[in-house]
């Protein structure tokens, strides 16, 4: 049935092109435009306009329920940057968290991908295993690691005791955020691995074989052939990891409580807490600074990848 329709259609277009009138085409285009209208309306009303409204809120002192508020100009922004230690410390925590995740998650993902990119029964099982944490809810992941980090009964100290060491993990205010970062790496390294694997599989096999024939070492082959060729995958991984490190929210609430302890507070959780304390205007200003930080860092990361690409 469907086959006869397509073959008839093909005959019509190829051999005897029956032209459809301009009017019929106009109507078709109108119908196609209508197909995009439900998505556009929902998106504009519930997504785009609220995004713009955030900018408006950010210059007010609105508390979220009063009928009135004042416009306070850039006061909220100045306050966040200069006199709110909770905001600046959450920014610093977020930067530490980001750097650790960016470095270690990317290295782990790349290492795994290099070891597993060839297709075989065992590599596909292992890939499935390493990807698995990605599908869990962040709260679940946080609770698994809460137990690992439990200073008295946890698996972490169980392991450290074997070496005669111990740690208070999340209990130490100076280092807690790094342990949270380790959890994030466990959570998403497998997801980034799959992006690297796609990149590695696109490297032509003949080039690697030629290098092997020429007697190049594995390391040499990697640095001069593989690494430059997977640059697009690397830049996707770095950009996505950066965004993920700033959007992390559930993991923090799961490990650090709600509201989170200041030692583990990052920007997303800080904005939420400000909002929950009925400082809508101020929270909106914090959110705008948050977006600016992400945009700037992402731009920086892209440039960095561009430089290594040019260098190799």
């Amino acid at each position: 049935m469907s086959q006869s329709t397509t073959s008839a259609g093909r005959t019509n277009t190829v051999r005897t092109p029956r032209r459809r009138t301009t009017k019929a085409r106009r109507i078709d285009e109108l119908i196609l435009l209508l197909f995009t209208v439900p998505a556009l309306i929902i998106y504009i009303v519930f997504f785009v306009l609220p995004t713009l409204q955030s900018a408006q809120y950010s210059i007010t002192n609105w508390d979220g329920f009063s009928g009135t508020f004042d416009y306070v100009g850039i006061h909220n922004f100045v306050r966040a940057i200069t006199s709110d230690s909770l905001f600046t410390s959450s920014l610093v925590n977020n930067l530490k968290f980001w750097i650790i995740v960016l470095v270690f998650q990317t290295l782990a993902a790349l290492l795994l991908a290099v070891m597993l990119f060839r297709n075989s029964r065992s590599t596909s099982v292992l890939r499935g295993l390493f990807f698995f944490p990605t599908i869990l809810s962040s709260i679940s992941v946080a609770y698994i690691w809460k137990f690992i980090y439990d200073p008295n009964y946890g698996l972490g100290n169980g392991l450290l005791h074997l070496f005669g060491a111990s740690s208070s993990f999340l209990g130490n205010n100076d280092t807690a955020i790094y342990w949270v970062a380790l959890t994030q790496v466990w959570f998403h390294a497998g997801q980034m691995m799959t992006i690297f694997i796609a990149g590695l599989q696109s490297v032509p096999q003949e080039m690697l074989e030629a290098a092997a024939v020429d007697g190049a070492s594995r390391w040499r082959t990697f640095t001069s052939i593989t690494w430059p060729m997977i640059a697009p995958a690397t830049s996707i991984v770095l950009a996505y990891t950066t965004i993920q490190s700033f959007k992390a929210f559930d993991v923090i609430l799961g490990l650090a409580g709600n509201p989170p302890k200041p030692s583990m507070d990052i920007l997303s959780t800080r904005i939420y807490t400000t909002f929950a304390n009925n400082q809508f205007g101020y929270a909106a200003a914090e959110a705008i600074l948050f977006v600016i930080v992400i945009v700037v860092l992402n731009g920086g990361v892209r440039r960095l990848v561009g430089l290594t690409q040019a260098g190799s």
Partner: protein
Amino acid sequence: MGYKFARGGLLTIFAVMIVVPVLVVLLGTFKSMQQLFDSPFGLPESWSIRNYVDVLTQHNMGQAFINSTVVTASSVFLTLFISSMAAYGIARLRGWKSVLIFGFLVLGMSVPAQANMIPQYVLFGRLGLLNNLLGLILINVVTGIPVSTFIMGSFMKTLPHEMFEAAAVDGVGPARAYYRIALPLSGPSIAAAAIFLFVIQWNELLYPLLFIQSPDKQTIPLRLLGFQGEFLTNYPLLFTGVAIASIPITIAYVLLQRYFVEGMTSGAVKG
């Protein structure tokens, strides 16, 4: 030789880091606190499902499970429906209109929730959609449209234009071509988008946390977050909550692994 040895060793360490915690959690759901602390790796003394019964009945997880199922199923379906229509329109329109609409919708992928959640909260409040499962469904659709339009739109753009032209000549208009031609041919991208949305929406915490106050309207992640305060270090009960939250998605993952990897990656891969 050295490489093979190092590779085997490293892969074993990484695998142990995933398998051991997951196993400890799973076995822990059948243990008492004392048992868990005494022998975290050992098999439970009895395979009693008491923790599961407790968590599902006394701690509202049963209700949360129903809520999560209703919200996730409805919002995945609605998001796919609305986005596939938009994707289809974008794929078949030509010139600047297509580029503009696609770019505009996909732009939303790079806007973090924090950038619009406060005005959204106010708007949903005015519409009576706070503390309401309908509100959660709507916000999931809203935040799901950019990424699912991106996944399905990128795919539908690769369908040959001539096919639709031919159909049009045969009297199959654009509306019928949507469900007779475009949808059946876009199966892989619809599956990828569906799985991406399923994982994100089943696990969503931020919006339920913002919107929901009543205990009987909580979704699983929100209920799970509440466990923290209720049983501070009662890990067997925490673990049971984790298991209940993770089992449905794990089963789906085992059955549809390839689609999961594709779906979760296609959402990430954007220039």
